[in-house]
């Protein structure tokens, strides 16, 4: 029982991080219909950058974390301005391939600068364990869940009340109409990339503060796609609901299935879910069903 509770809490917190990364994907997809497959590499890059700020430059977290956010903003802007902007209105294949190319490039940069490939982030959260009923749970998981929820609330408020947020929602709805209204669509695109990178960076910092920085974070970014697929490509609520589901399935499956299966089953559960969802309900739980017209 206490083991179950432990799995649930870890699953929820991992799932919330997945949801956060997935949100970064949905942001871009909604505003510009670009599928960002470089998400995993962006997560990894921002984790390493955080490591550089905290350990190599030895800055206190209160200084380092804002620098990371600014770095993520710049990263998003650069990617959008120099790689995606020239490809507006190109076929989807080019758009997917260009993000793959960006991901590959970023991976090279990472090996270039941080060749040792595995390291731990200094602890950001207090380490004392918490007792919830019979289970003993490391406090950082609760912090992660809390921070993810806070980011969700902030983003929701941004989309609800901020001018740019409203413009982004409008762009997602109808690009032509938005352009006719005089909203700078290109700026909306840049903004969505910048926000997406920040969200992904926060996700990366949270997950690597628990599990350390490894190359596996790229796969974490890819696993976030299962959240996107399950929740529906264009749905914020979907990401928020599907994230914890995937996280729970992953930890519970990893916890209870491993004795009966080959090892490492935990890491492929999200990918198996992708295949299952694709066959049964391709547009996800909350995704908009698209009807094609000739």
């Amino acid at each position, binding site marked *: 029982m206490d083991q179950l509770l432990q799995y649930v809490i870890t699953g929820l917190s991992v799932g919330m991080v997945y949801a956060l990364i997935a949100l970064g994907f949905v942001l871009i997809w909604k505003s510009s219909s670009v599928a960002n497959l470089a998400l995993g590499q962006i997560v990894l890059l921002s984790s390493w950058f955080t490591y550089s700020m905290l350990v190599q430059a030895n800055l206190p977290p209160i200084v380092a974390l804002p620098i990371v956010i600014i770095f993520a903003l710049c990263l998003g802007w650069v990617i959008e301005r120099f790689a995606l902007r020239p*490809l507006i209105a190109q076929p989807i294949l080019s758009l*997917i391939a*260009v993000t793959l*190319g*960006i991901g*590959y490039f*970023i991976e*090279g940069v990472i090996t270039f600068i941080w060749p040792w490939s595995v390291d731990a982030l200094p602890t950001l959260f207090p380490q004392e364990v918490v007792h919830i009923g019979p289970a003993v749970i490391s406090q950082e998981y609760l912090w992660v869940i809390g921070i993810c929820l806070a980011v969700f609330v902030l983003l929701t408020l941004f989309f609800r009340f901020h001018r740019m947020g409203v413009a982004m929602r409008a762009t997602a709805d109808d690009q032509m109409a938005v352009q006719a209204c005089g909203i700078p669509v290109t700026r909306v695109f840049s903004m969505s990339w910048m926000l997406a990178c920040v969200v992904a960076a926060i996700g990366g910092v949270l997950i690597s503060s628990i599990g350390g920085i490894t190359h596996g974070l790229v796969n974490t970014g890819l696993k976030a796609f299962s959240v996107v697929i399950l929740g529906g490509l264009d749905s914020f609520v979907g990401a928020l609901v599907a994230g914890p589901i995937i996280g729970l399935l992953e930890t519970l499956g990893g916890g209870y299935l491993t004795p009966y299966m080959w090892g490492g089953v935990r890491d492929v559960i999200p990918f198996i879910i992708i295949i299952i969802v694709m066959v049964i309900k391709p547009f996800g739980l909350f995704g908009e069903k698209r009807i094609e017209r000739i």
Partner: protein
Amino acid sequence: MSLPCGIRNYNYAQDMAIFRTKTHWGMLIVFLVLLFTVPPLTFNHLWLNTVNTIGITLIATLGLNILVGYCGQLSIGHAGFIAVGAYTSAILTNRFDMPFLVGLIAAGIVAGCVGIIFGLPSVRVKGFYLAITTIAAQFIIIWVINHWGLTGGFEGISVPYASIGGLVFDSDVKQFYLVMVIVLIAVFVAKNLMRTKVGRAFIAIRDNDLAAEVMGINVNYYKLLAFFIGCFFAGIAGALLAHTTYYLNAEQFSFTDSILYIGMIIIGGLGTTIGPMLGVTLVKIIQKVLLPIYMVPWLENSITSLPAGFATGLAPIVFGLIIVLFLILEPRGLAHRWNLFKAAYRLWPFSY
């Protein structure tokens, strides 16, 4: 642009011919003769090895090109399907002592069937959804390979040399002939397949699958057929890879390789036969020769304080940049440049 100056077609066969003039045939024969004599006689071990790799990669890329370039079904798990082929052949020849040719054919068929299984979602979804499905396929395949007893797991599996009858392909030169013969067959099949009913159906599906369906093309059947053919090629390439490297490990079929395969057909030019050849040759020469043999030592000598990850990080940086730049500056790839060159050369010395 497509016809040399002064050539007329008097019947359908002439119009459809790939090689129209005597000069074409002459150039083809000269090329083939050079191909089969120059590399094995004059190249050193490094270059011959590179040429073999180019050949094997080309087979896989031709398959990917059929799938992505002609049929429009995006697959980012090609390295996974190549792994299926490689391991099928390795298991058959190592564990069950089957002859090489059986392993080769079985590799293609098994990889094709696995491709159909993971291609099933293509019946309902396309574009990004399909890309994600194939990424998932890549990870599931590698996971199975790493944990299944038959495949040797993380330790890998050793593979015997390819052999047909009493002939054992145990040196670079012999493998060169083996690979090149299969490459020629693959190019011939790939080029001609696209001129048949099947190929035209693929192109119709790529351009507009709804319209294709309305016109009476069985879209689901042809999509799955494209997956089968594309992965069949991948399987053949995998088997050749297995029998020329003697030792297999799942590390050889990583997700980044899948990205690079997509990169190669984009650099070469989607939906052409010459494209994959140019793309693979360019990428593999950069990857195998230019970077490790020339660029890295040169940079290390000229710039003193390089970070430690420089040598391994350089290749992804270069290829990432090349892919992005090609998509932005020349989305039709090297094949388009080649056509422009051909047109200019035919009209030379006149500009039009």
